[in-house]
């Protein structure tokens, strides 16, 4: 059976199916690796390696019928727990661990080692936003004092790369001060006396984590079980690899992004893979139509014919799965590097490479292949044997009406949807064009044959009579074999549409966002201190006191969870980035206040996108550390695209962020002379343009979309080229017939060149229209002009790529010997 199946298939059809499955496998496996990493990857435990068990507050908020949301800000525990845990049987020691911003003020002699300890063998320098700890945590980090005595009082410090007795200037918890080094240690970070650490952290009687060490001969699991019995499920008790999660909630929260990434483009990928595999197999079946018909005439049952086609598909799939999986893992690794390069994926959150994605992808693709083979062979297998033989040569078939009607309807709906940016503004308006592009693509695939037939028919009738024979033949062939041509036209048009609409929608929206940010932050400079872990106390007052500074306001961002605020939002809890501003920000940042006043941004208050609510409303929020709050809306504003839907008051956010420090100080006017700050505040950095980096997450998403899209487009291009090559080689008889009727080899080649031009032009025209209409609407809605922002050279580039691929796939396979009589 298998041998017959393979002998019949001919290589051409199988090669097409092979490439379709190969590429599909790579895409699905790659996506799977990202998803699995999002679900199961573990943060490398970087610091508390000496702790057997780590107890932390819950950093996950469960959602109905959805994955829980990870809270990026540190949720704390009452320090009273430490004592209770230390009394548990089997616990040798317990410590309440704290991490807070701490950094040695740069520019001092012989303390550079504090930032980059070379000897510890640990994973690089400590993050200044969380480098400060209490002395008793040191033992749990695997470090020890090399020299000197532990810090016991305020003003004492242990660190690496300094001398005992040396005085260093340190900013800890935002407070600048002078500390005397009492001990030299072999671990990164700054260690203070426990009481000093508790005060500097500003946690007031709470701790970040409790680290436990098990007694001799007692396993971590035993201790974990004891702790669980004591605490119940209010807290998270981690052992082994899970400790890293507890240690770094921000990093763990990045995992959510890994799941969200493929979700956005995974749908398109799967649709594409399905189309490509289905198309490949149906091509293979069509090539064997006659043979299958003969089989039927020779007594094969329809079932046997279907099984034969299924065997062919499965053999191609089996051959393609292993190399496809390998490519998938490779692509995932590249994507991981890309994400790390843009800072979206923390380096201590490595991707997980398990066998699961490959297995799942194999099962999924096998199912797709079986289904596609079944669908493709259904018609051929059901024909009565006689008509099977008779019909086997009649290639021009009429596309079904339902199919055409459905396709046209989808395209109309798509064009309607694309008008949303004219009516709505804001993040959600971008969804319209994106969905429109998807619908339009499916519509094009369905209505393609009829459209190609109609368009080419109209063209053929209007052709002047003196036209050259090759061009005339090219047009009439494209018209007569509409089904054959339309597959290529639809697939290529789809790529043009997808490529242009995804990229240009993103760049247009980013441009609109950037425009709003620039307008809102016109004439504003920014002062920040990333090397100190955040803006230290006192810097704001110094900035305000500088001559020429008219106004200065601190700003930072955090993540809060809200219920759905607008139509189209997640119905459940929704994590969103929010700016934190104080009442004085109104004089610096212009959010385009519609109602209320930024000056009221005191206490438990927020400002809100004017489209989402009104002044005086109450809004229930979960802060970034999981604390539920109810806030009053005191202002609404219009520049939500650039500044986000929500702005929190500093009072509301206080105590709910990990660092407790502001990220930057916004200063007006930008021309104010801030150069003296560098002297008085080493570590402070001045930037002429305010960053207000609220759109970073979107930018990453966009980049990843484009990267995945590039892979996807490559996949489809290869598969379309494959199909065109198979079609052309299947036409050798037809070309020979033309030769016998008096066509010179040159005329046949010219005909093929015209055909490829016609196909390429039709594909580009369809793609440009379907991408262009939504993009024009989007640009009018967002930028107030009809053309999108971004790399417009993509338009000629995509036309060129399509033309080249079609030309090569149609013309190159025809060799001299194919045209010899």
């Amino acid at each position, binding site marked *: 059976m298998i041998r017959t199946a393979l002998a019949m298939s001919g290589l051409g059809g199988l090669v097409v199916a092979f490439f379709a499955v190969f590429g599909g496998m790579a895409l699905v496996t790659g996506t799977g690796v990202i998803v699995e990493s999002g679900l199961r990857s573990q943060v490398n435990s970087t610091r508390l390696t000496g702790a057997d068990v780590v107890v932390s507050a819950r950093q996950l908020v469960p959602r109905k019928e959805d994955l829980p949301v990870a809270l990026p800000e540190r949720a704390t525990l009452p320090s009273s727990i430490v004592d209770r845990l230390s009394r548990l049987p089997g616990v040798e020691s317990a410590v309440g661990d704290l991490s807070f911003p701490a950094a040695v003020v740069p520019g001092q002699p012989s303390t550079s080692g504090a930032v980059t300890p070379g000897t510890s063998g640990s994973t690089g320098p400590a993050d200044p936003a969380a480098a400060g700890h209490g002395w008793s945590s040191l033992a749990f980090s695997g470090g020890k004092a090399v020299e000197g005595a532990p810090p016991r009082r305020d003003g004492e410090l242990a660190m690496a790369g300094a001398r005992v007795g040396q005085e260093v200037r340190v900013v800890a918890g935002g407070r600048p001060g002078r500390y005397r080094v009492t001990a030299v240690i072999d671990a990164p970070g700054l260690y203070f006396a426990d009481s000093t650490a508790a005060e500097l952290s500003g946690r007031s009687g709470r701790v970040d984590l409790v680290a436990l060490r098990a007694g001799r001969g007692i396993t971590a699991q035993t201790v974990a079980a004891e702790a669980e019995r004591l605490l119940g499920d209010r807290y998270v008790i981690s052992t082994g690899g899970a400790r890293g999660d507890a240690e770094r909630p921000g990093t763990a929260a990045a995992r959510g992004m890994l799941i969200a990434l493929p979700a956005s483009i995974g749908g398109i990928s799967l649709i594409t893979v399905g189309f490509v595999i289905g198309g490949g197999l149906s091509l293979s079946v069509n090539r064997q139509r006659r043979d299958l018909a003969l089989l039927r005439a020779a007594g094969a049952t329809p079932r046997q014919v279907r099984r034969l086609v299924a065997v062919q598909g499965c053999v191609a799939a089996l051959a393609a799965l292993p190399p496809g999986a390998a490519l998938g893992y490779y692509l995932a690794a590249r994507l991981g590097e890309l994400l790390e390069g843009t800072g979206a994926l923390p380096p201590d959150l490595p991707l997980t490479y398990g066998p699961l994605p490959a297995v799942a992808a194999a099962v999924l693709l096998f199912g797709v292949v079986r289904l596609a083979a079944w669908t493709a062979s259904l018609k051929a297998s059901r024909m009565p044997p006689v008509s099977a033989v008779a019909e086997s*040569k*009649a*290639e*021009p078939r009429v596309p079904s009406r339902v199919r055409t009607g459905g396709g046209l309807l989808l395209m109309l709906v798509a064009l309607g949807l694309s008008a949303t940016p004219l009516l709505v503004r804001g993040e959600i308006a971008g969804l319209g064009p994106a969905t429109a592009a998807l619908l339009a693509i499916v519509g094009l695939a369905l209505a393609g044959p009829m459209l190609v037939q109609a368009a080419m028919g109209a063209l053929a009738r209007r052709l002047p009579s003196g036209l*050259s*024979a090759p061009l*005339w033949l090219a047009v*009439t*062939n494209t*018209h*007569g*074999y509409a089904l054959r041509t339309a597959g290529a036209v639809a697939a290529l048009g789809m790529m043009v549409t997808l490529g242009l609409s995804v990229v240009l929608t993103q760049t247009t929206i980013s441009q609109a966002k950037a425009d709003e940010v620039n307008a809102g932050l016109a004439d504003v400079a920014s002062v920040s201190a990333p090397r100190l872990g955040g803006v230290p106390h006192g810097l704001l007052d110094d900035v305000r006191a500088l001559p020429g500074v008219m106004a200065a306001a601190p700003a930072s961002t955090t993540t809060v969870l809200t219920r759905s605020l607008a139509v189209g939002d997640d119905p459940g809890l929704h994590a969103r980035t929010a700016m934190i501003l104080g009442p004085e920000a109104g004089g610096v940042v212009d959010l385009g206040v519609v109602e209320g006043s930024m000056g009221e941004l005191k206490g438990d208050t927020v400002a809100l996108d004017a489209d989402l609510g009104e002044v005086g409303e109450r809004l229930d929020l979960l802060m970034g550390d999981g604390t539920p709050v109810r806030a009053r809306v005191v202002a609404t504003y219009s520049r939500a695209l650039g500044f986000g839907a929500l702005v929190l008051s500093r009072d509301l956010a206080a105590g709910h962020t990990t660092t407790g420090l502001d990220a930057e100080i916004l200063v007006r006017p930008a021309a104010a002379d801030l150069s003296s700050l560098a002297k008085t505040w080493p570590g402070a950095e001045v930037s002429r343009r305010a960053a207000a980096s609220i759109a970073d997450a979107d930018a990453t998403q966009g980049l990843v979309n484009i990267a995945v899209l590039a892979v996807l487009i490559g996949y489809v291009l290869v598969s379309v080229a494959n199909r065109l090559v198979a079609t052309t080689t299947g036409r050798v008889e*037809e070309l020979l*017939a*033309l*030769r*016998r*009727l*008096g*066509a*010179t*080899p*040159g*005329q046949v080649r010219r005909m093929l060149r015209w055909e490829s031009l016609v196909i390429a032009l039709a594909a580009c025209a369809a793609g440009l229209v379907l991408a262009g209409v939504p993009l024009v609407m989007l640009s009018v809605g967002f930028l107030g002009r009809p053309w999108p922002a971004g790399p417009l050279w993509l338009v000629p580039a995509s036309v060129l790529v399509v033309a080249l691929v079609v030309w090569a796939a149609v013309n190159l396979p025809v060799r001299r010997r194919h*045209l*010899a*009589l």
Partner: protein
Amino acid sequence: MSDVVTLERVTRSYGSVTALDDVSLGFPRGRFVAVMGPSGSGKSTLLQCAAALDTPTSGTVRIGGVTVSGLNETRRTEVRRKHVGFVFQSYNLLPSITVEENLTLPLRLAGVRPDRAWLSELVERVGLGGRLRRRPAELSGGQQQRAALVRALAARPDVVFADEPTGALDLRSAAEVLGLLRELVDELGQTVIMVTHDPAAAARAHETLVMADGRVVDLLSAPAPEELAVRLTRLNGVLT
């Protein structure tokens, strides 16, 4: 009477197999000649070389006064377009265009404007009037072959080659097509060279060439089908 197609010492070998062995022949104008012979006798090769579809290994082929054996592919095609018409066993009509477009396709390829009066005369003669706007697939086999006949004659060629023109047809359609071929020769002065293995078909020709082992072994003038059948059976017996 001058010969339309002449072969001088034509040999065609495929590797070690000699399909046509030093054949010299002339086909006179206005005659209907059948070429017969067992499978492998070289009759198809003779047709292909005589029609300039194939290039002989040695020897000279002249069609309508033009020596074609030394020409390249493109030049040969141009000579064929001008001087030669074809009728194939499998009709060779393009399924994607209408019957009418099929009829004028060779003219279109040659860049020649079709002679409308001549075409409609031919169409009437073969009885295809009213079917010109159909697709080939909507026609019966006999009708398709008749369309192919019109196509072969549209350029007023010097000679029409027919390769098993009735091979795919039922008896009645075959008889019709053969009748038409004979009519063309008798009434319009056409020259037709037809390869066939059907003695009944060959019997409609003026002359029948019999081939074996790459050589012309016999030339029969208006033979009866029975006589031909006997000749062929004997040749087959010799071969086997």
